[in-house]
C-alpha cells in the first residue's frame, strides 16, 4: 500500500471511484509543486491528505477543483475526465470546497452567503425573478428554507443577519462549510478545517464532520495539519512530501510507514 507515486491505485474490477487523480502534476516556473500524484476516492469514505508545510496539499485541492490548471495528469469524476473544466462546472458536478484562508463573501450577511450558493436549488429564470412571479417566489421560499436548515445544522441560525466578515473565526469556518453544503455536493473538500480553532472547537469538529457525512451522504477529502484529528477521522489517507505522494493507506498503515516518519521527523530518524 505504501507504494510510490507511479502506477494505478485502483486495480481493475473495483467499483467506480467517485474521484480519481491520475499522475497529477503542477509546475510553477521551476518549482514542481506536485509530482505525478495518484489516488482514488471511493464513495462515502473520508480521505485525508497530510504532509509538512509546502508539501503541495493546497495545490492538490486547487487542481482538483479547477482553480489552478494542471501541468500534467488527469482528474476524473466518475470515470469522466474533467481536467479542463472550470471550477463552477466542477461544483455543479458535485464537488464543493472550503478554503484554508477562508474566502467568505464578507460584505454579505450570513444568510446571503448561503443564498448565493443556493442559487440553483431550485433554478428559476431571471425573467421570473424580475417579475417576482409565483414560480420565483416558490423557488425563493425553498432557498430560504434550505438556508435556514443549514444554518441550524451548523448552529449559525442566531447569526443569520450578521455580516460574514464580522463573525468569530470558528463561526466563519462553519459558515464556509455550510456554504459549501448549500451547493449540494457529493464530494466535500475541506482545506485545514481545524486551523485557527480552539481545542474545544477542534474536539467538536471530528463529530461534526462524521455527522455531516451521514446526513448529507458525503464523500470527504480533508487536508489537515492536526494529525490526531486526521487519524481519528479518516478511513484512508495519503501523505505528500515535496509534491510527491509518499504514502497511501489506512491511518494505521500510514502511521507506521518509515517514509512518513522520515518526512515528519527529518532525514536523521
Amino acid at each position, binding site marked *: 500500500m505504501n507504494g510510490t507515486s507511479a502506477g494505478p491505485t485502483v486495480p481493475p474490477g473495483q467499483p467506480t471511484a467517485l474521484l480519481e487523480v491520475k499522475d497529477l502534476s503542477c509546475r510553477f516556473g521551476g518549482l514542481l509543486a506536485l509530482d505525478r500524484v495518484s489516488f482514488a476516492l471511493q464513495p462515502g469514505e473520508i480521505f485525508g491528505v497530510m504532509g509538512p508545510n509546502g508539501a503541495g496539499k493546497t495545490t492538490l485541492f486547487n487542481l482538483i477543483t479547477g482553480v489552478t490548471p494542471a501541468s500534467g495528469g488527469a482528474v476524473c469524476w466518475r470515470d469522466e475526465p474533467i481536467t479542463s473544466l472550470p471550477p463552477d462546472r466542477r*461544483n455543479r458536478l458535485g464537488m*464543493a470546497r472550503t478554503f484554508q484562508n477562508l474566502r*467568505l*463573501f464578507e460584505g454579505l450577511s450570513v*444568510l446571503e452567503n448561503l443564498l*448565493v450558493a443556493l442559487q440553483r436549488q431550485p433554478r428559476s429564470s431571471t425573467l421570473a425573478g424580475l417579475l417576482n412571479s409565483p414560480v420565483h417566489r416558490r423557488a425563493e421560499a425553498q432557498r430560504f428554507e434550505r438556508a435556514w436548515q443549514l444554518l441550524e445544522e451548523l448552529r449559525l441560525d442566531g447569526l443569520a443577519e450578521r455580516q460574514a466578515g464580522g463573525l468569530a473565526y470558528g463561526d466563519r469556518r462553519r459558515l464556509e462549510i455550510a456554504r459549501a453544503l448549500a451547493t449540494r455536493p457529493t464530494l466535500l473538500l475541506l482545506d485545514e478545517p481545524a486551523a485557527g480553532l480552539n481545542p474545544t472547537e477542534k474536539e467538536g469538529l471530528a463529530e461534526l464532520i462524521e455527522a455531516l457525512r451521514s446526513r448529507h451522504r458525503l464523500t470527504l477529502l480533508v487536508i489537515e495539519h492536526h494529525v490526531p484529528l486526521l487519524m481519528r477521522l479518516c478511513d484512508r489517507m495519503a501523505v505528500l512530501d515535496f509534491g510527491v505522494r509518499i504514502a497511501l493507506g489506512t491511518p494505521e498503515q500510514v502511521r507506521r510507514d518509515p517514509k512518513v516518519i522520515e518526512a515528519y521527523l527529518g532525514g536523521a530518524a
Partner: protein
Amino acid sequence: MIDHGLLVQMLIGALLGISVYLPLMAGQLSLATPAFYAVGGTLAALLSTRWAALGASADGRFPLPSFLLEVLLGGVLAGLLALLVGRLVLRLQGIYLAIATIALVEIVRVAILNLPLAGGAIGIFAIPQPFANAAGYLLPALALLALAAWSCQRLESMPLGRAMAAIRADELAARCMGIDTTATKLSAFVLSAVLAGSTGALAAHFLNTWNARQGSFDVSITTLAFVILGGSRSWLGPVMGGLLLTALPELLRPVGDVRLVLFGLVILLGPVLFPQGLITPALLERIGGFGRQEAQG
C-alpha cells in the same frame, strides 16, 4: 431655477449613473456606458430623420409609439453590441477592463463620426419632437428611471443579483460555489448597455440634435463621478449622484466661470468627505433597508 429641461437632463444623468452602477454590482469597472448611449442616440436620430414611415403623423408631431419603439430599439441594439463585445472585454479585470471599455467608447465615437449617414462632426439636426415642450420628456424619463431602479431593487432578491454581489465580494469563491461568473458578468454588462442605449434614444429626441461627441471619454468620467459621489452600494447612490452632478453646473451658472472650479471642487471633495458616497450602507440601514435587500425569514 430648475426648469423642465434641466429636470430631464438630471433624470438622464441618473439613468446613466445606474448604467455605470450595474456592472459595478458584479465588481466590474466598465466605462463603456457612453458608447452604448451613443449607439442608442445615433440609432434614434437616424431612424427618426431618415425613415419616413416612423414620422407619419397628422399634427406634424413625431408619433409617440415611434418614439417608444426607438427607445426600445436603442436598448436592443446597445444590448446586442454589449453581448458581442462583452465576451471579449470581460476577460479583463479591474483597471484593464476600464481601459478596454474606454477604448470601446473611442471606437464607437470614431465610427459614428465617420458614418456617412450620421452627418460627420456636425451631426444630425432637427430630430423630430414627440412632445410640444421639454416637460413632455419628464414622464418617459421618469418611467425609464423607475423601471431601472425597480430592476436593480429586484436583482437584490434574485439569483442573478446575488451572483453579482458574490463576484464583487470574491470572484474565485463565487466560481467554486458553482456560479457561472462569465455569464453573470455578461448579464450585468448587457443590462447596463440596454439602459444606456434606451437613455440615448430618449436623449437624442430631447436634445433635438445628435453627434458623435455625445458619447465621449468625458462622459465616461462624468458618469463614473455620479457613482463615486453618490455611492456604489445601492442604486440610490448613482441616482443621487446623477441628479446632483447634472444639476450643479446649471445651478452655478449665475457665478460665471467660477462654476467650473466649484464643480471640480465638489467632485474632488465628495470622495474625501464621503468616501463611501452620499448613500452609504449605514444610511440605507437607517431609512429602513430601502434600496437594499430586505431580510426575510
